[in-house]
């Protein structure tokens, strides 16, 4: 059965995904998400009782290295790619009143 995508669900996804979904785009998201959920819901036909979720295929757990000091990119190099910079910092719109 199709998973119904409500406006409340899209509102919450907008917040999670940091996207504005309005007008045509909202309609499309509702349709596409419903279709995709129907499709991936197929997984439920497969019995996975007792199967542990597998996060990684390699057996590595933690990879440690020596804590050695090394150079990193310079501030100017990094800020050169920023949409807006000021006085050696990233500049963003006002966040507190």
């Amino acid at each position: 059965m199709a998973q119904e995508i409500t406006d409340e669900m899209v509102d919450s996804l907008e917040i999670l995904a940091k996207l504005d979904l309005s007008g045509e785009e909202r309609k499309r998201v509702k349709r596409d998400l419903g279709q995709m959920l129907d499709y991936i819901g197929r997984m439920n036909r497969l019995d996975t009782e007792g199967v542990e979720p597998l996060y990684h295929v390699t057996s590595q757990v933690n990879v440690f290295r020596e804590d050695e000091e090394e150079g990193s990119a310079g501030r100017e190099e990094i800020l050169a790619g920023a949409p807006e910079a000021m006085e050696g910092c990233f500049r963003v719109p006002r966040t507190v009143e």
Partner: protein
Amino acid sequence: MREIRRWPAAELAGRIKKREIKAGEAAAAYLEQLRTAEPELNSFITVDEEGAMAQADRIQALVDRGEDAGPLAGVPVAIKDNLCTRGLGTTCASRMLADFVPFYEATAVERLRAAGAVILGKTNMDEFAMGSTSETSAFGPVKNPWNTAHVPGGSSGGSCAAVAAGQSLCALGSDTGGSIRQPSSYCGVVGLKPTYGTVSRWGLVAYASSLDQIGPIARNVEDCALLLQAISGGDRRDSTCLGREDTDFAAGLTEDVRGLRIGIVSDYFDQGLDEQVASAVRRAAGILQRQGALVEETALSLAEYAVPAYYTIACAEASSNLSRFDGVKYGYRAGAQEGLHAMYRRTRTEGFGTEVKRRIVLGSFVLSSGYYEAYYEKALRVKALIVKAFDEALSRFDLLLGPVSPTTAPLLGNTGENPLQMYLSDIYTVSVNLAGLPAISLPCGLDAEGLPIGLQLIGRRFGEQTILRAARAYEKACGGFALSPMAERGQEAAGSEEGRKRDEKSPDGTEGKGGMPA
């Protein structure tokens, strides 16, 4: 000039090192072909003519001084535009990164340069590698060099088209769910997705980190092995990179498949597979059998669950990975906004294309409270079963054999409104990524329309040597693989403007500064 482009990588590097030709002549020959074919194909986003000629000069200087110029001395390579190149734009075919110029280099690219390769430019792709046709690019679609009415596949469509059209001798791509193998199949070139952890992902713009691997795309098996050898090996900057020491892929390349056990994956031949693809793949299996391989059918099961599990996991990881594009540190930022959150939202809404947003939304959903267990964790359980099924099959066989994709390259413009149909073109490739295994795509004939068909060989974890050996045996028995007719076409039409620097396109698909000669 045309003769230069006939030589495979080892031969070209050898001739440059023996000073039979200059590295600059090789670079110029490829750049000329690149310009000739580019107006029809759109396989590049950035062409770095100046950088390529400068690197060729450096290689030549090493040769002239009698120093070792590397195994890929003067070999022209094209780089998928999701691999960071220092000082050279890296767009991921997205408006979000249209003006992004990295100040660091991907490990794989750094290693190619150290091996002597000459980087011609950055190839077009599906936006953030999300797509199977290279039509989701913000820089316009790539065309298939075998027939420009068709897609080249994706997401590494530009890299594969460039190799097939002789615009570059070889290329790098990335493969998250088939993004090297499927376009290699559609374009009739050789593309290998290595075992997860073989190639460092440092500097690869992440799509789904547990599945992404960088790999080589070439016109023959030996070049593919050479390129893989150059980019493999440990890297402290990527902790998932395993530091393999068995990376002597080219030197160990033999073509003896006698006694090799190859399983034909019978489930892949069920409904949905084009008959011409099925018979070409079976014919290829017969060729390997005549070379002495022990070929029999085997069931793999779970094929129908691979795409659903793949999209759940890949989109979940993508929604997390792409949260870094927020208009603060790099990339696009939407115009004046009231407050930080509005800026984030407008930036991402305007910066990402439809398919990317579709996947971020799905990923956000399957990770959200109340749905996490039902979708994301379920997919990880399905993945565990898929891994087990592969382990079981590969305990009985050295290699598994099947098609790469259910059909040959579809027509352009057919998948935009039906994403599910596009997703299904990856049905035979995604499970290999879920299991972290290596696999290759090899050309195995043309369909009635003259479009290439791909053969897939899947190996055990770390089984690249075996894959390459069987691939080489198959290639030899076929008498080699042909490039697209476009690669052979004359170069009379080529523009040869002097002093042109770097061609960069703008994200609406039109040509920007410099522009390509018509």
